[in-house]
């Protein structure tokens, strides 16, 4: 369980020669090995669906933002990068953002906005190169943020796979839905009450 590490130098090592020759040989052998670096600006990275690029807003088929300006992303953002002004709309969703601004200088790309969003309206894109010549250009407005749903396909697929349901969802397995218990949201003590609360959660509300 306990491993005592100790090391004395051998005679060859004490003469400097052995380890220096071994080190040099190893270093030179790397000349003939596979190159591990990438020439970045020429060879672009191809991020996978899990990649967190800059957050963007999803545009629906009619060109409207899916966002209903609930303000949850604005609230959850740890770096307070998001500013939303809401307005009303005649469309069935009733509310939409009048202005939606993400300050990309503040954004840390943590993805909490995406996780909090109840509408699948803000998602992390695969864009990772952020360059501007002024601070103002880094404040992306609604027009700049809106991205067609088709362009975000892999990420939306990832979200659906990751956040959509629990691994072993009893409903998915066809378990009969139990009678909903009385909803209790109070901060109870862990233990019996928690177990029953968990059971309620498992069986549906």
């Amino acid at each position, binding site marked *: 369980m306990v*491993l005592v590490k100790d090391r004395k130098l051998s005679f060859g090592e004490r003469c400097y020669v052995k380890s220096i020759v071994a080190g040099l040989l190893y270093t030179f052998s790397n000349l003939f090995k596979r190159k591990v670096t990438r020439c970045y600006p020429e060879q672009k990275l191809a991020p996978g669906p899990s990649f967190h690029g800059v957050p963007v807003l999803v545009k629906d088929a009619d060109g409207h933002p899916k966002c209903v300006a609930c303000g949850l992303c604005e609230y959850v953002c*740890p770096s307070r990068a998001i500013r939303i002004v809401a307005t009303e709309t005649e469309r069935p969703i009733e509310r939409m953002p009048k202005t939606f601004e993400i300050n990309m200088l503040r954004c840390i*790309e943590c993805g*909490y906005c995406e996780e*909090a969003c109840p*509408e699948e309206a803000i998602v992390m894109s695969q864009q990772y190169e952020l360059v501007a010549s002024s601070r103002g250009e880094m404040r992306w407005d609604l027009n700049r943020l809106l991205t067609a749903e088709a362009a975000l396909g892999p990420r939306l697929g990832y979200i659906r796979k990751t956040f959509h349901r629990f691994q072993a969802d009893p409903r998915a397995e066809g378990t009969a839905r139990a009678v909903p218990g009385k909803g209790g949201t109070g901060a109870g*003590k862990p233990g019996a009450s928690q177990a029953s609360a968990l059971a309620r959660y498992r069986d549906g509300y």
Partner: protein
Amino acid sequence: MTSQTSTVPQGDLRTEVMTLNMGPQHPSTHGVLQVVLKLDGEVVIDLEPEIGYLHRGKEKHAEHMTYQQWFAMTDRLDYLSPLQNEICYAMAVEQLCGIEVPEKAQATRVVLAECMRLTAHLIYYACVALEIGAVTPYFLAFREREDLFDLLDELTGLRTNQEFVRFGGVKAEIPADLARRLKEWADRFPSCVDEYELLITGNRIWYDRARNIGVLNTAQALALGLTGPNLRATGCAHDLRKAEPYCGYEKYDFEIPVGTVGDVYDRYLVRMEEMRQSARIISQALAAMPAGEHIARDYRHVLPPKDRVYRSMEELIYQFKIVTDMRPPRGEVYQAIEAGKGELGMYVISDGGPRPYRVHVRAPSFANMIALKPICVGRLISDVVPIVGSIDFVMGECDR
């Protein structure tokens, strides 16, 4: 302060103590640390680490953020092992709320924590060798670190500051394909450590610069509050993963390397062996990944599944409630884990509101920093640099 007699002949030669500023921009100070040295010739007679150059008020931030939001800040404490900070904070709040973490989430956390120990120790190896003047190890360490970051990037979406741990578990499970490649990497990694050791372990230049330099015995180390590899290098086999197992560490077979002398060389040997052991743990944890869920089903603290949020009012309410107003019960908790640099502790006090009343971080880097003066005083100035490297701290965590 020890009285080191000057070797300079007195008499008509006028000598005086010289004050020398090392840092805050010195390349060997691991961030922005200033060390004010008082020198008598080449001998250090006093030393004062000036910390605070990287103070960003992370603990104060916690009082103005929700519990969930502060995860983003924990990443930025010890930025060489962000996920360990997240795990520690999550465990503290989970204890406060009484959330039971599923086994699969715990095993995933073990994998992530050991990956972070590897990246932290790789940086240690890279820097400590560079400080002696060995440049090649730096590139070798970064080679493996990049490989590991590529894998973590694929899992978490971010290379560093991953924000992957959630209350009750982790954000996503490790996909089977990625788990296979990560296991392959972990199985291959010990041979890379052999390569690292080939370069400097038996090298007499490194040996002479490290052996019997910066010696600390167990009693001194304990008195200074040292933990982790620095304590184990003195021969004390204290490791929280064995002493107070968390996240199911008791299930894994690994050994605690300890040193014999407690010098720079022992700290190096211990960390190199820890890397091999960490790779073993990753391999075991991935091979025996339990079935089940990666996050607890706790309706009060864990966000509901998204597809239900879109359709059901009840889940929608919980989504809003948890994001904006998750309130752990009143109480306080201290949770410690074995991070790469020593015992990392999170002390969280809740007053029952949606924001922590106070969060304090017991940062191993800060305790390590305190040891700098007793180790260095009386030694030559050229030894200060390897000692600073060997006690391994990160200023982001030290200053917070």
